[in-house]
């Protein structure tokens, strides 16, 4: 395992908002080709960690390196271009664009057509449009919503919207795909289908970071798991190791379940 190349290194990251410490010296590494689960009870700092990685927040201390390059301080669209893509916990598609157009916005991340080229319809415009459209349709069928390409995103069912978000993120051609609670609101059958999709994504060569608090889902699909609680990393290891870790058990079961 040590042979594998590090893709994303979260190096002692601390993040404070005023007096609140949202992340406290969080430290883990994500290797190429794996599916890493980032789990923890509600409010553990999962999404904050995620936001720091994608450049939404600047860490107070520590570094985040992606492919050996420091992420913090980079523009968000540049981070995407470097090969990190994400979905959102509460779906954030472009509701008034069609499914196809949503994915095209993703493919556009690597296109270079700008105003002059588009204005004059130079060959580059046509070439990029053709390639992007082919790729976008391919992705729509990859995530399983082929027939809906001309529907407005807002008119898609909830499950299809989640899938479309994944397709849009994949369209940016990422080496790392970060999924923020992709199964939220899914029924068991949909969750199974999602697991298959995540595996398929990994098999296509994309590393996956999965944030989730549904333990069963995480156990079934991840290669390794990092557990956060109150902004600290309390465990890391294979699903089996993590499951048997008393700290994790305490974090999940020791606290009376609010629900």
């Amino acid at each position, binding site marked *: 395992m040590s042979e594998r190349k590090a893709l994303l290194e979260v190096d002692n990251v601390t993040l404070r908002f005023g007096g609140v410490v949202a992340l406290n010296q969080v430290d883990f590494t994500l290797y190429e080709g794996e599916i890493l689960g980032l789990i923890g009870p509600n409010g553990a700092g999962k999404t904050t960690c995620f936001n720091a990685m994608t450049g939404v927040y600047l860490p107070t201390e520590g570094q985040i390196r992606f492919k050996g390059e420091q992420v913090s301080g980079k523009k968000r669209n540049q981070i995407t271009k470097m090969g990190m893509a994400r979905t959102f916990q509460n779906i954030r598609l472009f509701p*008034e664009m069609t499914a196809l157009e949503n994915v095209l916005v993703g493919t556009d991340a690597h296109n270079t057509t700008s105003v002059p080229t588009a204005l004059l319809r130079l060959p580059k415009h046509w070439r990029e449009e053709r390639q992007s459209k082919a790729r976008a349709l391919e992705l729509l069928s990859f995530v399983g919503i082929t027939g809906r390409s001309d529907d407005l995103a807002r008119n898609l069912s909830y499950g299809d919207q989640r899938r479309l978000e994944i397709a849009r993120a994949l369209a940016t051609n990422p080496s790392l795909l970060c999924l923020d609670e992709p199964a939220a609101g899914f029924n068991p059958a949909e969750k199974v289908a999602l697991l298959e999709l995540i595996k398929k994504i990994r098999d296509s060569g994309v590393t996956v970071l999965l944030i989730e608090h549904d333990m069963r889902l995480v156990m079934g699909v991840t290669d390794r798991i990092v557990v956060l609680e109150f902004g600290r990393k309390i465990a890391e290891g294979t699903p089996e190791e993590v499951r048997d870790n008393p700290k994790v058990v305490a974090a999940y079961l020791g606290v009376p379940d609010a629900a």
Partner: protein
Amino acid sequence: MTTETVKKQRWKLNLRDRFQDMPKPARIAAMVVFVVLLYLLPTKAFYENLGFPIPMGSGYLPLYTTGSDMAGVLFQCGYYILLALGLNVVLGYAGLLDLGFFGFFAVGAYTVALLTSPESKLITEYNWLESPWPWLLTVPIAIALAMLSGVLLGWPTLRLRGDYLAIVTLGFAEIIRIVAKNQDWILNGDRGIPSVGHPPGTWPDGEPIFELEFTPYYWLVLTVIIGVIFLIRNLANSRVGRAWVAIREDEDAAELMGVPTFKFKLWAFAIGAAIGGLSGSLWAGQANFVNSATFSLENSILVLAAVLLGGAGSIGGAILGGFLVIYLPEWLRSVGDVFGWPTQVQVGNIHIDVSPTSLRFVIFGALLIVVMIYRPQGLWPNRRRAAELKDRQKEVAPVE
């Protein structure tokens, strides 16, 4: 929903779909016929043969503005349509509320005036130019300068929140007007710049085409509009247009999906400004005289009203809106003349001017409110936005 409205909607849908279902040659033929009709609009004979005689006394022609030169009204409509098309890129596509859009019109108009007038201070005082330039040569410069001012204004301000942007752009237009009014070095304040050049060209008999007669100017602006529509459509159906809509819909998500948001917002500003400048240079080519009084705030608001009445984000809407804000008051005035609508009403010893042209700001102000309440998507909406706004209404309104 009553059956009648259902029928009506179906009919409307049919019209749009029927046009799109026609074979391509037929569609092109229909468009050509339509465009030819547009070119004929200033001709009085066109209205005499419209074929629906409405008996309204002698001298009245349906749809013709008898109170003022029809070609002149149409020309004015033309450059307002251009302005509306420009603002539509900024506001309709990219969702940036620019309240000082007329400022770019001013930049375009002044550029043309300074370079083409023999009485420009660039010639008489500073000797920067030996002789006035021909109008045609100054248009690209006017566009470029308007674009430049769009970029200069956008660079510091496009990072601001939407409502701050509105105020800052409003301030920008006001600064341009004040600068134009107050200083004497170049723009000559209220005295303005006379003898501005006209577009080139002569009739076969040697008379210049672009003189006092409005019709050629209308033809010119119509041609320009058609060209601009094609260019804007090129942008809208490309990576650029997608980026704009994505920014409008969810700027953060767009950025995280790799859209260089600032760059494309700046482009939207620059493109809008360029079209505004183009409109200004066309107007200056006809106006003969440019001074600071032309650039009052009302005009910015009129353009805004045009875009929103027509329907933000829709090219058709911008055209319809730009046309209506100019044409409607003029036409109402001619109708009013026929029916004997008074131009003034006396209340006590106050004379209130009630002519449609002077009341148009009251009317359009009120219309803005009414449209925002009952039809926020505009008269000729972009299909998507209509859906969006309707759905918002259905969502639970906040508790009161």
